[in-house]
């Protein structure tokens, strides 16, 4: 019987060592040095930026509402194309509990002000001066990028291209709290 125990013990030790080595290899294969990219289902990182009136806008202030988070630049043609549609539908959806927040990627106040006036934007526009929100927290690469965040702060969809009017409406509807 003692022999059986010894055999079992040896098998256990060998199995454990092999398992540890396997785990180490799997860890080496899966761990990546690249920065983490946000994915659908992740919690949207909180941020705090100043809007054009100098007022603080925090993402967490909109908990309980859907947030249509749009990253853009004045030099980006598709951003310009979709902006009027976003503006048009933002008003009616604000009443339904969907807030549009718009983040400019580090341009000058002059450019952003001119743009707001040109397109008559009424939702909060913030300039991400240090690019810490867009580049570090949200890892936005192409413009425009739109994140759809539900009432619990979970990212429901990430759109990294220009959206049509119909798309904008259906996306806003998708994060509308009941």
């Amino acid at each position, binding site marked *: 019987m003692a*022999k059986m125990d010894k055999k079992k013990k040896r*098998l256990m030790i*060998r*199995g454990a*060592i*092999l398992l540890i*080595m396997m785990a*180490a*290899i799997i*860890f*080496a*294969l899966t*761990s*990546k*040095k690249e*920065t983490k990219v946000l994915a659908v289902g992740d919690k949207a*990182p*909180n*941020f*705090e*930026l*100043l809007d054009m009136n100098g007022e*603080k806008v*925090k993402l967490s202030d909109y908990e309980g509402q859907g947030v249509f988070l749009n990253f853009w*630049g*004045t*030099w980006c*043609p598709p951003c310009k194309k979709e902006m009027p549609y976003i503006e048009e539908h933002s008003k009616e959806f604000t009443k339904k509990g969907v807030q549009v927040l718009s983040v400019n*990627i*580090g*341009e*000058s*106040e*002059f*450019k952003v*002000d*001119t743009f707001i006036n040109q397109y008559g934007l009424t939702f909060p526009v*913030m300039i*991400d*001066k*240090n*690019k*810490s*929100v867009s*580049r*570090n*927290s949200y890892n936005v690469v192409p413009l425009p990028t739109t994140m759809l965040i539900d009432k619990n702060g979970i990212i429901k969809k990430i759109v990294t291209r220009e959206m049509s009017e119909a798309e904008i409406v259906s996306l806003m509807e998708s994060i509308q709290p009941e």
Partner: protein
Amino acid sequence: MSKFKCQCGHENPFGTVLCEKCGRPLTDEAQKSEMVDMRYEGSARRSQTYKKTIIDKIWNFFSSVKVGVSIIIAVLSTSSIGTIFPQKFYVPVSGNDPSEYLEYYERLYGTVGKLYYQLGFYDMYNSWWFKILIGMLGTSIIIASLDRVIPLYKSLKKQRTKRHPSFMKRQRIYGESDIADSDESLEKAQKALKDLHYKVKVEDGAILAEKNRFGRWGPYINHIGLIIFLLGVLMRGIPGFYVDETMWIREGETREIPGAPGYLLENIDFSVETYSKEESNAVFGEAIEKNGSIVKEFKSDVKLYKEKEGSLPGSADVEFLKEYPIIVNKPLKFDGYSIFQMDYKIGELKTMKFTLMNKKTEKSLGEFTIDLNEPAKDYDLGNGSSIELMEYYADYDGIVDGQPSSKSPIPNNPAFIFNMKTPDHPDGEKSFVAIRQTLEVEPNDYEAKFMSAETRDASGLTIRKDKTLYILLLGGIVFMIGVIQGSYWQHRRIWIQKGTGSEMLIAAHTNKNWYTLKKDLDKVKEVAALPTYTDKQDKDAVIDTTEGETN
């Protein structure tokens, strides 16, 4: 059958060559041979014991030295292939488009380059198969070591002072003869060996003198060092242990530092200093004349900020930590991070100065300067004249869809729409001004004339953090300790015992440096009457130098 009983009564594990206790040869092969293989003391390597379950089979695979050597050869040869062409990391291709990489390798290195790319050698050290290979190497090192060091340790611990004559006879150094007073010889030999710093054990008319058993553990210590090293490399994958990032930051900009969340860097000034002819002596002065300017220093003056505790990304809630001039090899250091000066770009437009001029009289009403990165809306020139900036295009790209457009936010090709308000035209005259181009809706009386521009530089910085460095250092030190331990200490053993009647037997073993072992034996023989020994591998049968002998 798992145990093998020796004649002396000791139970040896299956696969044992020499009895752990008395040293009798147990296998047919060992019994027939004239000299036994003393590697691992003839103990059963644990991998030889059974071959039953899958786990045992995998274990045995990695325990094999042949497999280990094959893995090492595979790692060495693939690693060297990775150095033939530049790795992906060093290829100047922006973005992550695979076709651009393929194009790069094909353009520079032809068909071989294309093949190099397609076989995945272009990013070899991150490839799954290379990582698996390294993992297998680690596994092989651990298992092969365990399988050998444990039985070796056990048998060296269990070894008896009195060995069986069949064990003595099969040693490389062996001698037997009749000695008049064997007790006295043993007594004297014992003392002589002690004087030579041997640890001497006496039992029933037998002596075992042993020295430097410690040297036998060298290879295993060495392997522990390797494992620590591999562990250190593996830990680079844990977030926060290893950072290697680059960032571009223009003068005047504040940016979050990639890889160092919560820290911001402001670039105050970048400068390049060159050697002047005056400060150099005649020889270097000549060299400067020949080569043009020679750079003395690349410097980025920076300020470091930290986001306040609990503040959110994007909020301007930061505290100033320090100001530091980063020069090459003098990085900015904070919280385990080092920021190095790596690259620079000079001459990006920063400000443009204009003068408002009457076209006819060429009389100026004043000058104004536009900050291209943070332009103001109005510029008051005094005396009732002002400029209203109506639009600004940082990187003017022509008219798209009936509107002027900018292709990037970087002021590579600035263009402006001015409304020039003068006492003559209080409502203003509109003018579109780009570099070497002015468009007017109607002919204007006034124009904004470009005077001069200021540029700014950008610093290319590298952010490094390596918490594994000390682990790698520890691995290296342990590795070297193992090498030294195994190289400079030789495990020597001398057995002297009484045989039948007045016969005496003498045998000796060492894992390396047999010459010195024989010298030790000769010294003992000078004081004690002992049998003459022969070295079975010494062909001349004369004591001769056999240096450089290893196990």
